[in-house]
């Protein structure tokens, strides 16, 4: 029987090509994601290990609450310089160096544009003279000896053509832009820079000024004398440290940084990519089911003959499954190879440092191949089971067209799966169950399966309606196209179901983002009373000096600073925003459900958003204990509860309340109004002129800000849609596949209508319109399911501020139109094939 499988596989290799392609795409995205993650991880491991090579012990502040981590680890509280004198005398210490290293020093390229910023951070730091400890290694030039000297990283120097001696402008978030002379070019550890992030290094006093690092270090690194163990030294140093600082060995610090980086990467890149890979495989599995269904149907006589000569059902089942696993294996092997290409593509997409080599762990290949084979075999199980039901007598009969009575059982189970899917989705969205995301995923999967099972019932009526104009305007080709689309509802349903899934996902994301956009727009309209909003493009905090300059300008008024801090309520890390109470209702408005926003003028009084209040059961007058990163807890009174706000979220207090509890004074956002009697445009140009010294800090008027927020949401939608369209592409391959096999199956019939006088053009038109109908059926189902899912999601995310629900009609029409176009494209080759069939083959007697 094994031989039969192989023979059959080889004889159908062309037909299996498209199926294979679907698996290849899915497997390559799985394997590519794993290879990509491994590659980034090993790159960072290399960087951190090399950078910390000479560091025996590193002393740092505690991790900040609420910082979600990122490249290089979580944010930490800075430590005072005076600690150097505490640590230096500890026995075993050889060298010691204080390190300032923080985001917010953006180099300006020769073209006047900022380098980096939208993506990798732009780091600034102090040059470290102890070459054993320092991660920086001069490649050319020398260290910064003048106050206006800078050493830039080799990666940026290469990509932007910087050379030693050249003048360069650097913009800071906490200091005015300044010109520097490049004194040297350095590598970071053995790399050119920190995985794409730019690094600018200054003389220590300069760094202190431009990075807001007066009397502070971000860490103090120590090298050990010969024969001193890192761990022993760490313990001795730790015993001298005050409670706000901690010590770790250089290796520990490097490992912690690696782990944090790895978890950031897998959360923000790996998991989403794997979700998409899963979607591709899921859509691809429909293609596999359909292909094997058709292959089994075409081989009915052959299978019956095998049964007639004594093959058992089990042998027939095995032969089909062996064929499936061989197909899956070949496709998966191709898939993992393509995965290498996918991984390199992703690497260049995130601008991985040059010289990065792909990290090839056996795991990536094994998972890719196993997943590909398992999906193929599982999908082929349904058709294989049908193959076992072929009666031996079928070998003797004239091949009969498949009977089309749809088993009732299937409809009942389809409806059940659909309803269960809806329930699971509903419960998942309500957040009532513990495993919310898993439940939501299973629910959506159930809805897709349910609709796919029920689709055969829907195909005929939908085709009749959609097919009416086709019949009307495309004559006999239209009539035959419509009837062909309806003749095998199961096949049409399965083909369009794959498209349905892709389009449903695209549509639900579109509905969600449209709702989000409408809500954000309304929220901005409600909350932002100021004419202007000012914030840093990199999202970094900026110097309060900017606010001081604005306050001196008579053309603007009501300059409001928003300062944020992470706080700890119980064990939860949350945000606190401090504003001047005079800003209320002049630049910023809160929609209160109870209490009064003016209450924040009272010291240690906060207003809190409704979601947080209901989560903690807080009411006006309640007291909460607020933990600050580097100062004792404070008891605060709840003065009011507000509805979700577009500008300020979490606990809102006055600046006077926050100030004693934090060590830095930096602004996150500023709001301002045009002064009375000053036109908006005059005020805007004055404002922008005032901020010229802070090129990283940008001002927008209210309309610009709304457009900006909207466009950010659109960018997100476009990214997701782009990825999901790959799933739609797989579904289109499915249409090609189905059409090609249908054309083959209908050889006689096509020959007949050609004999009766159908031109080749009419024949092509017939196949083309059948394809368009299949695609449109998928579009109708997909849009319906997608709008439903999108509305459910939007409603469920009410707590996240989605209080407006919008259905983007234009997008939906566009998706349907695109589906139709895909239908036309899918039909190209099958139509050509149909029009070239030999007329005689059709009618020649058996």
């Amino acid at each position, binding site marked *: 029987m094994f031989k039969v499988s192989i023979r059959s596989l080889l004889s159908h290799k062309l037909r299996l090509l498209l199926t294979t392609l679907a698996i290849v795409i899915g497997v390559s995205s799985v394997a590519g994601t794993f290879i990509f993650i491994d590659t980034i991880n090993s790159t960072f491991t290399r960087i951190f290990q090399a950078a910390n090579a000479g560091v025996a012990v590193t002393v740092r502040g505690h991790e900040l609450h609420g910082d979600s981590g990122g490249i290089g680890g979580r944010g930490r509280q800075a430590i005072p310089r005076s600690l150097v004198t505490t640590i230096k005398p500890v026995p075993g210490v050889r060298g010691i160096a204080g390190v300032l290293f923080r985001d917010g020093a953006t180099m300006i390229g020769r073209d006047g544009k900022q380098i980096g910023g939208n993506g990798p951070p732009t780091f600034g730091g102090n040059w470290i003279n102890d070459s054993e400890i320092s991660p920086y290694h001069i490649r050319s030039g020398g260290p910064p000896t003048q106050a206006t000297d800078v050493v830039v990283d080799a990666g940026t120097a290469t990509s932007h053509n910087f050379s030693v001696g050249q003048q360069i402008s650097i913009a800071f978030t906490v200091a005015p832009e300044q010109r520097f002379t490049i004194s040297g070019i350095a590598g970071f550890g053995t790399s050119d820079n920190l995985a794409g992030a730019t690094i600018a290094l200054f003389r220590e006093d300069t760094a202190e000024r431009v990075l807001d690092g007066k009397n502070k270090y971000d860490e103090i690194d120590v090298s050990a004398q010969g024969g001193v163990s890192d761990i022993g030294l760490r313990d001795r140093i730790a015993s001298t440290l005050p409670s706000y600082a901690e010590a770790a060995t250089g290796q520990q610090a490097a490992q912690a940084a690696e782990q944090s980086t790895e978890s950031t990467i897998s959360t923000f890149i790996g998991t989403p990519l794997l979700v998409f890979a899963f979607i591709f495989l899921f859509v691809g599995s429909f293609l596999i089911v359909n292909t094997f269904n058709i292959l089994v149907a075409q081989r009915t006589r052959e299978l019956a003959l095998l049964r007639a000569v004594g093959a058992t059902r089990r042998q027939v089942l095995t032969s089909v499954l062996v064929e499936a696993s061989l197909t899956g294996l070949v496709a998966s092997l191709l898939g993992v190879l393509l995965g290498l290409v996918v991984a390199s593509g992703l690497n260049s997409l995130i601008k991985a440092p040059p010289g990065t080599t792909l990290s090839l762990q056996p795991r990536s290949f094994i998972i890719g191949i196993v997943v590909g084979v398992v999906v193929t075999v599982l999908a082929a199980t349904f058709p294989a089971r049908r193959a076992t039901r072929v009666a031996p007598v079928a070998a003797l009969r004239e091949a009969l067209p498949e009977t089309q009575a749809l088993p009732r059982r299937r409809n009942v189970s389809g409806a059940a799966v659909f309803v269960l899917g809806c329930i699971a989705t509903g419960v998942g969205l309500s957040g009532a169950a513990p495993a919310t995301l898993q439940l939501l995923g299973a629910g959506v999967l159930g809805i897709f399966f349910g609709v796919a099972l029920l689709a055969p019932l829907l195909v005929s009526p939908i085709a009749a309606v959609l097919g009416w104009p086709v019949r009307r305007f495309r*004559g006999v080709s239209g009539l035959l196209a419509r*009837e062909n689309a309806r*003749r095998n509802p199961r096949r049409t349903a399965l083909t369009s179901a794959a498209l349905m899934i892709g389009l449903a996902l695209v549509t639900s994301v579109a509905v969600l983002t449209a709702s989000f956009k409408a809500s954000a727009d309304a929220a901005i309209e409600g909350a932002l009373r100021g004419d202007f909003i000012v914030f840093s493009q990199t999202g970094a905090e900026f110097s309060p000096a900017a606010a001081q300059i604005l306050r001196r300008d008579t053309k603007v008024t009501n300059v409001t600073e928003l300062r944020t801090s992470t706080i700890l309520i119980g064990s939860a890390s949350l945000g606190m925003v401090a504003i001047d109470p005079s800003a209320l209702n002049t630049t910023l408005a809160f929609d209160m459900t109870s209490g009064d926003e003016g209450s924040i003028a009272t010291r240690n009084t906060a207003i809190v958003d409704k979601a947080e209040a209901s989560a903690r059961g807080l009411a006006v007058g309640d007291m909460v204990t607020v933990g600050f990163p580097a100062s004792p807890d404070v008891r605060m009174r709840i003065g009011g509860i507000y509805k979700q706000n577009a500008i300020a979220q979490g606990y809102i207090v006055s600046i006077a309340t926050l100030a004693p509890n934090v060590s830095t004074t930096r602004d996150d956002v500023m709001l301002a109004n045009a002064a009375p009697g000053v036109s908006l445009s005059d005020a805007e140009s004055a404002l922008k002129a005032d901020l010229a010294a802070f090129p990283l800090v940008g001002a927008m008027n209210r309309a610009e800000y709304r457009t900006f927020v909207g466009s950010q949401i659109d960018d997100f939608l476009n990214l997701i849609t782009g990825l999901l369209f790959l799933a739609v592409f797989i579904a289109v391959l499915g249409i090609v596949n189905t059409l090609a096999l249908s054309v083959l199956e209908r050889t006689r019939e096509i020959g007949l*209508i050609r004999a*009766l*006088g159908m031109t080749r053009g009419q024949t092509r038109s017939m196949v083309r319109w059948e394809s368009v109908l299949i695609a449109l059926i998928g579009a109708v189902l997909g849009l319906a399911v997608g709008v439903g899912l999108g509305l459910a999601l939007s409603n469920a995310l009410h707590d996240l501020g989605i209080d407006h629900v919008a259905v983007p009609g234009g997008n939906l029409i566009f998706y349907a139109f695109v589906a139709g176009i895909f239908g036309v494209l899918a039909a190209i080759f099958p139509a050509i094939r149909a029009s070239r069939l030999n007329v*005689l083959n059709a*009618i020649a007697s058996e």
Partner: protein
Amino acid sequence: MADGSQQSSAQAATAVQPTRAASEASGSSAAHSVDAVKIYGRGDTAVRALDNVNVSFDKGRFTAIMGPSGSGKSTLLHCVAGLDRLTSGQVYIGDAELGALTDRQLTLLRRQKVGFIFQSYNLVPTLSALDNIVLPLTIAGHKPDGPALDEVVRITGLGPRLRHRPSELSGGQQQRVAAARALVSRPDIIFADEPTGNLDSRSSAELLDFLRHAVSDLGQTLAMVTHDPLAAVRADRVVFLADGRVVDEMTSPTADTILGVMRHLGD
């Protein structure tokens, strides 16, 4: 694809053959062939399926083509009907020489001037009986015209079953639908390839009555390939083929005369 490769004008036949039929060309002839040669394969395996065939199908007449298996009778039908191309020689439908036509011209000619009835009914399974009958008109973009259609439909005797799909009809009924389809556009000539081959004797007789009626009363031209003497006997004229050549013909055949010729050919 295959039909193009089989055509080779280089192999023009030069052999001189009796040309009884050729002289009757045009005028009274709905279709005719001149020195028709069809060769399948190449070199040692080449088979001469038609070997300088000259035959004419007269207007308003019912011609049967008979011959043993492999005599080339189906090949002749396919070539004259414009479904296959000759290796050399010419076939005409009316005044049109089929070899000179492009695929599209040939398709349009089939649509306008030719009707077909096949052995295995060959109905479009997705269309109702009525839609199958009017298919040649629909393909040409014509509206079926009332009285003529009614007449055709009436003589099929299908009545209420016209709205049924082919799979719900008996073999005899399906073949009557196919015959009505061939008749509905009033083509210049109808080609029937073993139309009774899959039918029981009663259905066969009904179909032959129907065809005879189409020729005698409606003035249709009919060319039918058959191996059944009981079918051939309903024709006005029988042409006998053997080894790709016309070997005999008779008018006003009887079962006995046909069997006599056939028995001789079978030897």
